[in-house]
Structures are given as structure tokens and as C-alpha cells.
């Protein structure tokens, strides 16, 4: 394939206008001879569109996403209304750049302003930024933000029930800064607020919790936020956006910064990315926020318009003093979330959350009728739960796969001492039907006798 438009004649005219004899001359007058590539690189041979499509289809067929998805652990198979794909596949959105020229980008700017507005309503927070990379880095960005807000840089407390990958990212992000990251282990699925209170002190920048937590269980979020604020630390909550259809909002129970993996809001699984990092906070902290922000204002004719705001926080102006290094964000996924939330509305979100929750509880009940399968914890959960299987995790999962179901991940995968090594996560969304779940359970019963 070639995407070049200029004909040899046109190229010759252009070379003449430049005053050189060849493109090689332009290159050789600028790049030292001894570092030029001789000949061609060693890359796979070029394919035409049709051959590429055949090739990629063959490879895609090796990926077994055709089974019923009961997988979780930070990415979920929620339903995506067609309108999300239709709107976001418009070239006017996906082939535009960051809206640096507001007059030529009102479409993106207004959509992102609406995104911020919807996220505020979803979370009960005052201000949302226009997106971060994904849920894991969002936690780290929130921690850095909390350090700036509190001017405490030495110590952070995080629950062991927070997604292990998010905790690993935080370890990576803070390693060279020498910040102490204190992890409070979960017991029987949740963390004891009393233990957290003991760990918090006046050097602590923030407490990071996840609600529902990585094991699916519901933490005592309000008590935890209150404990953090009692020592002047910020309460950082990583939430599941779908859960807010039925659960109380971070802003309602005292979160100072709410972050999330926003994938569930209309972004397909696509093997882990691009996803959507959400970050929203209380008004008083807005100037310490990382990432792009859209503001509403007026143009010179006094007409309503939208533009980038508080840019002096950002790297292109503040350079090494910026609140984050983020430049390219996850705009198109923010647009997906905007259309998704518009389409679901309050009632749709409630239905999706309630359906996920009830289906998950139904499956949890039924799975316990399978020989030697038990629920790991007896705590309330939302749409995800941990099971243990005495017959061995591998055998259980292989049997489920044979029956046409992908379950997991198994907790041992994360090499994390905070997690039960023989546990397996099971996640259920509104997409699952009773018939599917019954087929799984009866199949397991028959095969795992």
C-alpha cells in the first residue's frame, strides 16, 4: 500500500522549487553519511488490504473471545449501545487533534465539557478533568495530586484490596521519589477501618481505597474517608462507574479525589487498552489537578463557547513544574463515555447496575451448589466475587472453558501477597442471561462430580 499522492512529475516540480536534484540530496545534506541506513530495513513484506484482512482474521480467530465472558479484575464485558460506536467512528471526532484551536474544535470541546459534567453528576464531585490514561495511572496521579494538596510527600496509605496492578503502578511511580507506600491488608474480603485509622497519621498525604474493592466486596467507604480526613489526609476513592447506578457516590461519602477505570462506560475490552482514566475532585483542589480541563466561556461576540482552561498547570506551559506530564490523553474514550452515559441515563445505569448485581448474586448462589466450590468471603459484593475450588483452580477453569465460559482471572496471577493464592474472580454483567448461568452451573456439576 502507498499513501503518497504526488506523481513523479509533481515530485520533479517540487524538487525544482526547492532547488535540489533529489530527495536523497535533501537527506544527505542534513544527515551524516555514516548513520544513514544502507538499503532497506528488515521488516515483514508489504501486504495489500485484502491479504492483510485475511491474515488478521486468521490471527483473530486464534483468540478465544467467543466464549461467554465472566471475567473481571479491572475490565468488564458491559453492554455497549450501537449509538456509541456510530458517534465515535465519525472522522470529525477520531481524526481531529487535541483542541488547541478552539474555533476549529468546538465539537470536541463541547463534548469534553459535557463529559466533565456527566462525570461530576455520576460521582457527586465538583470538577472532572478531560481524562487520564487508564485506571491504574489515575490512582498514581491522584496520589501525586494529594501530595501537592497536603504538602505531604513522604507517606501514602493504600488498602490491600485495591487492584494489585494499580498498587504495582503506584510502587513504580513512587519508587524514585522515596515515598513510603503503606499497604493495609484485607481480611475476609474487606479492610478493617480500625486498622486503617491506626496506620494514618499527620504525615500521610492520602488514603487510597477501592469501592467495590478488587475482590468485588463493598468496603466501609464512608468510615474510611472520614478517618483519612480526620488526620488531614485526602480520601482517594477508585470506583466502578457502573456500580454508581445503585451505590452511593464517592462525593456523597466524603471522597476528596475520585478516580476510576472508565472502560465500563462504553469502551470495548480490546485486550486492555486504550481505556479511560477518570479523575474528579472537590473544587478547592482544582488547581492541583493533573491533565486537561475544558472550561465554558464566551467568545468575543459574547457567544457561548468552550476552551482549554487552567493551562498553566500543564506541561506545555509549566514544564518541570507541571502537575503532570500527560499531554495526549484518552479523548476518544471520553467521548465514548459521554455518549454511553447520555444513552443510559439515570434509569439505564440503574438497570445495568442492578442487573449485574442480581445476576452476580444468582451465579454466586448457584456456584456453591457445585461440589467443592465455595465463596471465598461472606461479605456483601456488587458484581464480582471470589470463589475457591478444592479440586484445583486450573481444573475448574479448564472445565468452564470446555463448557464455553471464560472465568477469571485467578488471583495467583498477580504474584501479590495481599491476595488469596487459590482464589478466582468471577464477574457478571447485565449481558449475562439466566440460561447461560444455568448452563454453566449444570455443566460444572456434571463434570466436577
Amino acid at each position, binding site marked *: 500500500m502507498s499513501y503518497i499522492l504526488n506523481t513523479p512529475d509533481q515530485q520533479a516540480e517540487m524538487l525544482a522549487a526547492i532547488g535540489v536534484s533529489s530527495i536523497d540530496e535533501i537527506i544527505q545534506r542534513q544527515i551524516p553519511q555514516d548513520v544513514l541506513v544502507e538499503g*532497506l530495513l528488515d521488516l515483514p513484506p508489504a501486504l495489500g488490504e485484502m491479504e492483510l484482512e485475511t491474515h488478521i482474521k*486468521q490471527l483473530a480467530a486464534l483468540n478465544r473471545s467467543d466464549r461467554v465472558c465472566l471475567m473481571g479484575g479491572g475490565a468488564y464485558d458491559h453492554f455497549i449501545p450501537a449509538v456509541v460506536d456510530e458517534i465515535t467512528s465519525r472522522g470529525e471526532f477520531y481524526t481531529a487533534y487535541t483542541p*488547541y484551536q478552539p474555533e476549529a474544535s468546538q465539537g470536541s470541546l463541547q463534548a469534553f465539557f459535557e463529559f466533565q459534567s456527566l462525570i461530576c453528576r455520576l460521582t457527586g464531585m465538583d470538577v472532572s478533568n478531560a481524562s487520564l490514561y487508564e485506571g491504574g495511572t489515575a490512582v498514581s496521579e491522584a496520589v501525586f495530586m494529594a501530595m501537592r494538596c497536603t504538602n505531604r510527600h513522604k507517606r501514602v496509605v493504600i488498602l490491600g484490596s485495591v487492584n494489585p496492578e494499580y498498587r504495582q503502578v503506584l510502587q513504580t511511580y513512587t519508587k524514585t521519589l522515596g515515598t513510603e507506600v503503606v499497604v493495609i491488608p484485607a481480611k475476609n474480603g474487606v479492610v478493617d477501618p480500625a486498622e486503617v485509622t491506626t496506620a494514618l497519621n499527620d504525615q500521610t498525604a492520602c488514603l487510597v481505597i477501592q469501592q467495590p474493592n478488587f475482590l468485588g466486596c463493598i468496603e466501609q467507604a464512608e468510615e474510611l474517608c472520614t478517618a483519612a480526613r480526620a488526620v488531614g489526609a485526602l480520601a482517594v476513592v477508585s470506583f466502578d462507574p457502573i456500580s454508581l447506578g445503585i451505590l452511593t457516590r464517592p462525593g456523597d461519602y466524603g471522597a476528596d479525589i475520585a478516580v476510576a477505570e472508565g472502560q465500563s462506560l462504553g469502551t470495548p475490552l480490546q485486550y486492555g487498552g486504550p481505556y479511560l482514566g477518570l479523575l474528579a475532585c472537590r473544587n478547592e483542589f482544582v488547581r492541583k489537578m493533573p491533565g486537561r480541563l475544558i472550561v465554558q466561556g464566551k467568545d468575543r461576540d459574547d457567544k457561548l463557547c468552550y476552551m482549554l482552561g487552567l493551562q498553566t498547570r500543564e506541561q506545555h506551559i509549566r514544564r518541570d513544574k507541571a502537575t503532570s506530564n500527560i499531554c495526549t490523553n484518552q479523548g476518544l474514550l471520553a467521548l465514548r463515555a459521554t455518549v454511553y452515559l*447520555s444513552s443510559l441515563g439515570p434509569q439505564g445505569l440503574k438497570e445495568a447496575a442492578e442487573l449485574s448485581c442480581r445476576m452476580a448474586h444468582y451465579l454466586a448462589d448457584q456456584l456453591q451448589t457445585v461440589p467443592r466450590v465455595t465463596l471465598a468471603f461472606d461479605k456483601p459484593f456488587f458484581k464480582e466475587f471470589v470463589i475457591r475450588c478444592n479440586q484445583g483452580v486450573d481444573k475448574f477453569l479448564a472445565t468452564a472453558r470446555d463448557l464455553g465460559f471464560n472465568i477469571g482471572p485467578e488471583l495467583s496471577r498477580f504474584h501479590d501477597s495481599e491476595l488469596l493464592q487459590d482464589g478466582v474472580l468471577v464477574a457478571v454483567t447485565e449481558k449475562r442471561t439466566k440460561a447461560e448461568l444455568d448452563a454453566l452451573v449444570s455443566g460444572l456439576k456434571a463434570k466436577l462430580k
Partner: protein
Amino acid sequence: MRNTTATQPLFDFSAPGRRATEFPAAAVPTKSLADLIPAGALAKEPPPLPELAEADIVRHFVNLSTLNMCVDTHFYPLGSCTMKYNPKRHERLSRLPGIVDLHPHATEDDSQGMLAILYEMQQMLAEIAGLPAVSLQPAAGAQGEFTALLTAAAYFRDRGEKRTKVLFPSSAHGTNPASAALAGFDCVQLPPTNTGFVDLKQLQAELDESTAVFMVTNPNTLGLFEKEIATISKMLHDVGGLVYIDGANMNAIVGVTRPGDFGGDMMHYNVHKTFTGPHGAGGPGSGPIAVRDFLGDYLPGPVIQKTETPSGVRYSLVTPKKSIGRVRSFSGNVGILLRGAFYLRTLGAAGVREMTEQAILNANYMKARLQDVLPVPQGELCMHEFVASAKKLKDEAGVTAMDIAKRLLDYGFHAPTVYFPLVVPEALMIEPTETESKQTLDAFIDAVKEIVVEDPDMLHEAPHTTSVRRPDEVGAARNPVFCNTACGPT
């Protein structure tokens, strides 16, 4: 023809009871929610989202989309951003079943096809960089910079060296210093130079045993290749430091020269620029990094490994031996990496070289034809972009780079990047890319030539034809409104 009703604030279309997505009732016998969820955690009502009908949603967003300029509709010569054509076949392929619906925790057995594509991408990026070890993890260029700096920090720590300084030229992109600071380094910016090139004496003066990394964009942000890059690299290596190549401008050199060959030890790609992952109105991107073999053990995990066994080829996810750890969840911005991989697979080795050459040709042609009205202070020739200056025009007629940029919108062209790099006064950074025809370039050149002789007062007021005029940024900053006024913690 513009439908201003449809582009009113989204919330204005809300009416009680309107629906666009409905789900069935749960057909399972479970207890009520109140019995499943503790009272304190259960919301009394769902969040106050707007209640909208699908017809309104569609009309609203479709009309909003028409207020954007984009590559599909306009020439978009935004310097440093590589706004090239985004092939439609990439969109179709990345939405295939097996790709778009693959869960990131799928077992290795269940994701061999995906891993095969990503492994090949890793190898292609290593070959293009001339640097053997690649991590696909970083979500964008800035995260690539940060990740590479942490990789370097781990390497130095392992050797028992305490190196605290990261250096960069004053023409560096803002993410370079921001990433260095985030990684815990002290930032040292070299003073601006007249030539636009790194001044070796200045650099030498800053080099010592505390120097960790020199970050340099090559070609630099003026669109010029740092001729002395090999010497610069030797100077860094002599004091035990490393050279980081900011690969935002790779579109100028792919297949022509390689960072690993001209002395770079680490680099990032912006797949959303060079390899045409679309920009998505601000993202997502993908910023994989490539590093020398002795740094490979420190890369973030997981990386993709290929093993040939008697029963066939097997791909697996492994964490390098001395890995810095994770920098994000899962395995990178796969959707963008795939589009980049599709692009490279359709171009092949000759195609990528042609891409680079034609990007260089288009930029030099524009430069040659524009410099009599907009002088280009640095560089006789350029690589894939150039930075013109409107300083003379500003001094003589009061017309600024911003005025020209805004007026270009009226002519149906997206504006170049303005006021970057900071080392050029009244900078207009122009990057045409290879996917534009001479006709388009000529039309843009003609427009600039008309604009520079237009009435300055009219130019200060430009644009005149867009959906809104210049925003009052000062006014908006005074009392900033971040969300629909009716929102907030109600």
C-alpha cells in the same frame, strides 16, 4: 445550514422519562437489592444524569462533530503532531471479533493471535529504532519518556551510581522536563542557541558524573537533524550518561536513519503520530519505548516473548528480570498499537522509506515556497517540518503568528502549531506530512500569501467564519466554569 438548536448544551434536551437504552428485568430469583447491599452503601436514587432520547443524542453529537476540523475534512499541518491520513482499513480490522472483544486477562492460550500481532509490532519497532528491547506498555509519548527515565534510573541504581540530572535543550517539548521531574530527576535546561542545534560547549559545561540522561528530539523541534548527534552521544557516554531520543519526529527518519545507529540509548515512539493511530481529538495515543540491550532487563512488564517449540510457536507475557514494575494496567494501548502494526504491515520496508522521503519532500517544498513571506530563521533545508517566524510581519504590521493561524481557519485550513518551540519568536511550526498532494500544499501556500497582505485589523479579528470567534480566555479564567452549571455535588 448550521443546526444551532441541536448543539445546545446536552443537558437542555433532558426531559423526565426519556430513554435511549433499556435493559430487561432480572429474570433470576435473588433477594432485593436492599438485602444484598448494606444500607449505607445503597444510593437512594441513581445519579442525576440527563434523561435523553436517542434521536436527540445522535443529532446533538453529529452536529457537534461538524464544528470540528479534522484530517478527514481538512489539511491539518500541525507541527510536531504528524496529522497524516488515517486509513479506514485499520478501523475495520481493529474491530474484528477476537480483537475488539478479547479480555485483557484472557489466558495466553486464548490470546495467541493477539500476542502474535503485538510481538511482531515489538520486533518492527526494534528494527526501526535500531534498539533491540521494546516495551509496548506506555500509553502515550509522555508516558514513554517517564518509563524510559525510570528504566535508566533503575539501571544506574543497579550499578551503584547516583545520577540526579536530566538535561535537555530549551527547544524541548514540555513533556520532557515534566517527565524528568515526575521521575525524580533535577531538570537542567540548556540555554537557547541561535542555530537551533545543541551547542556542544554548553552541553559539555553541564556534563559530569551526576548526569543521568540527555533528552533530545531528533530531528529537533525545528525540524532539523542534529548533525552532531554522534558526538553528543559520545560526550554523554564518556561521563557515563545515557541519550534519550524523543521520537515525536520519527516521521522524518523511519527507514533513513535509526536512533540506535546515531547514538541514542533509549527512545519513545508516538504511534498515534508516526504510524497513524488516529488522534481521537486528543487521544488515545501509544508511546512504546525501545532501549539498548543492557537496559532491556529493566523495562516494565509484561513484554511479549516468542518461543519456538517442537509443537510450534508460542507467545507469552513475561516480566523482565530486573523490571521497574508496572507502569499501567494490562498490556498497553493495544487498539492504537494494532493500527500502527497494520500500517507497517501494509507499507513494508520500501513503503516506510517512501513515507519518510515524501514527508521530507512536502515539508521542503512548502518551506521553499513560503520563506519569502514567512522567513524560516533556522535551516537551509529541513526534515519533515519547519518553523517559520512571523516576527518581521509583527514588527512591520502588527500581525502575529496567532493572527495568521486564526485566519487560515477562514481559508479552510487547520492552523500550524504556534508559539512552539519557544526559541523562535512568533513561531509557526508547519508539518504537512506525506499524505498530502501538491495541489493541497499549493492552495495552503497561496492562502498564506494572501493573508500576509490582508488588513491587519481584520486579521486581529480572525477567524470570521468558524462556529465561534476567538474565545475570551481571560474572562473564562477569572471565574472558570468546569461543568454544566446545574451539576456539582447535589
